[in-house]
């Protein structure tokens, strides 16, 4: 899902060794070397908007300026953060990497680092597509032609470890707190954006690192980000909430209403049916087709028209997308968000679930609460 990208990330992002020990990060790098056999190391980019790969390998979330990690196959990784030497003190608690330096003259640093790596291989690039052109040019000039292995790393990132799953469960708990607070604010007859902000605040109080919201002012037909306060009431209020906790995202749709909502309930029934279909090896496109059949006579909501969901984790949207053309399959240890959105001329509702696929099917980590008006 697209949400409004904030200009600065402010939530708690410090590395917590008890939750995610250094060994787990080192094991991830080792898995990357198995995929990129000739690689002497990896040059990994991340910024405020796109940093799932960087966080996967370093735990570092760039709150302000971009960062670059140099991770050798043999030896200690180094992290370079934007903003100058004065930013180092603030950046260090966010990663297990001991060598944190300013991101400047990076071309010369990368060139020397690439020369120093043993084994005669070349480094690979991760998340190069998200770099600003000038930085990419500097690195390409320094390291020569380097293979981009972002897709290979994304494949490794699909299977969540027990610790990753625990983090997603915590994100789901914070998501639950947000939706509960929104329902409470709706019952107290708060205005539309006051309801949304009550949810955001509740998620932060539950330990969220980041919260993104969308909501509807037209009965669920369209969604919009918070742009400024809207005092008028909105019941039913279709909302979307994404909550990040310990680096990992959970997301959910809900219809916030003081009374039962038959359209949300209808969509929830289809969601329940779709969840039963999900198992390892099931094609993503098949699930999508089944949902479209099941929601008739409604048609897919504009928001769910392109995709019925996606994998979720360190990024809000990880591959694969659950599109009608997707030949990819659900995988054991994958975590997915699955959405059902329905629309007709007058009525609209979107509900969703966060699912962890296991050998027997899937576990529902979160799903839209029943709209009982309580």
């Amino acid at each position, binding site marked *: 899902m*697209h*949400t*409004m*990208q*904030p*200009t*600065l*990330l*402010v*939530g*708690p*992002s*410090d590395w917590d060794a008890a939750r995610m020990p250094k060994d787990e990060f080192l094991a991830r790098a080792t898995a990357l070397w198995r995929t990129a056999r000739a690689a002497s190391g990896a040059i990994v980019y991340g*910024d*405020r*908007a*796109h940093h799932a790969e960087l966080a996967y390998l370093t735990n570092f979330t760039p*709150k*302000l300026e971009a960062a670059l990690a140099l991770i050798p196959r043999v030896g200690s990784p180094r992290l370079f953060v934007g*903003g*100058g*030497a*004065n*930013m180092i*003190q*603030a*950046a260090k*608690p*966010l990663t297990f990497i001991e060598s944190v330096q300013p991101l400047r003259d990076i071309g010369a640093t990368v060139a020397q680092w690439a020369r120093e790596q043993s084994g005669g291989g070349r480094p690979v690039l991760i998340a*190069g*597509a*998200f*770099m*600003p*052109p*000038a930085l*990419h040019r500097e690195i390409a000039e320094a390291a020569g032609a380097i293979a981009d292995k972002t897709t290979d790393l994304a494949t490794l990132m699909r299977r969540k470890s027990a610790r990753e799953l625990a983090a997603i469960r915590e994100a789901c708990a914070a998501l639950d707190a947000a939706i509960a607070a929104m329902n409470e604010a709706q019952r107290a007859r708060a205005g539309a954006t*006051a309801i949304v*902000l009550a949810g*955001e*605040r509740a998620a*932060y109080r539950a330990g969220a690192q980041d919260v993104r919201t969308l909501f509807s002012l037209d009965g669920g037909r*369209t*969604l*919009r*980000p*918070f*742009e*400024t*306060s809207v005092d008028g009431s909105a019941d039913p209020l279709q909302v979307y909430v994404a909550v990040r906790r310990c680096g990992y995202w959970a997301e959910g749709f809900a219809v916030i209403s003081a009374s039962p909502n038959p359209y949300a309930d209808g969509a929830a029934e289809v969601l329940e049916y779709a969840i039963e279909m999900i198992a390892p090896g099931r094609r993503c496109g098949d699930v999508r087709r089944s949902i479209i059949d099941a929601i008739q006579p409604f048609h897919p909501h*504009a*928001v769910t*028209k*392109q995709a019925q969901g996606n994998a979720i984790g360190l990024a809000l949207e990880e591959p694969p997308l659950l599109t009608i053309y997707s030949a990819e399959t659900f995988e054991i240890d994958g975590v997915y968000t699955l959405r059902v959105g329905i629309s007709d001329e007058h009525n609209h509702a979107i509900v969703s679930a966060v699912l962890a696929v296991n050998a027997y099917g899937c576990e529902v980590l979160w799903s839209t609460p029943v709209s009982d008006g309580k």
Partner: protein
Amino acid sequence: MTHVERLAAIRAAMSEQQLDMLVAVHDGSHFIETPNPVFVLSRFKSLGPAAVLLPRDGEPVLIATPAWDVERAQESGLRVIGADDVVDGTIAALDGASGAIGVAGLPFTRLEIGNRVKQALPQASAADEIVFDAAAAKTEDEIANAREATRIAELGYARMLEIARPGMSEDELAVELKCHARSLGAEDNFLLLCAGPRNPAVAPSNGRIMQAGDTLVAEITPSYRGQLAQICRTVTLGPAGDDLKRKYELLVRAMNAGIAAAMPGAPMSAVCRAVNAVLEAQGYGEYCHPPHIRRRGHGLGFGSIRPGDVSLDNDTVLQAGMVFMIHPNQHLPDTGYLLCGEPVLLTAQGAQPLTQRQSALAEIAI
């Protein structure tokens, strides 16, 4: 100046440079330090990558992603095409348009989008100056929004004085201030906030627990309808020492010297020089340059960040209607980094701070 007049100025510049079409692109990653030509042309803050096609003689078209956000985009008043891929949508909307094309935004757009635009429009020339020159002075609406953003910033500061306490983490305080700003109508808040006995700089918050005796520094920068305004403030958790008070008064004097020097027709570098002169007179000359400090203020986006940095190498000539920060934020050897700064509107009479209360060192009783 109105938005319509700004578009007319951009079209006039297109005529001068013999451009038939201007293509503005943005990757949807909004940041205080990077300009957004799509926002300048459309006043639309996109969820995803977006583009605007501005023909020299015709109506502009906004390409918005994701496609489902098209109706919100239409509130901009432009004709809108919803697309799931901004480059594909832009090329389709251009429909093989002939004539000279200028592109704005490429240096600030992520590589994947920039490369595809370049491949699709190999003959296009850079047109960033055309867009951003016309947005150096703010429109009447942007100035009104900057005033509201400043009001929210000052209320945010008041909230910070109410709740900041030893035992609270920097992150907790930052999150609380973010939520507070949104409750007042700000859609975003660039909030740098940190505390310590002697801060090396202002930086993003982290999990550090604030202690009695800390100096807390905060750049509170709400955005109201896409227009940022910032206040820079310094607070002590507990009583401030006399030396800190004296040093802070010095910064306030330096800031006021900068404000006095900001006049239409003056170069921006003169503002920086005026700020530095006050500090140099007190023996802090070496701290007026990198690595200690590189600028004494900056423009305020999200659209245009003109007139740019308040720095010695910025010779932009100031003009009425510009909105920018003057902040002699300074690392001093005895006190660490201190924040002191106001957003100003340049009028025919000079720089007018948008704040109701000017920066002063605050002490939180504990």
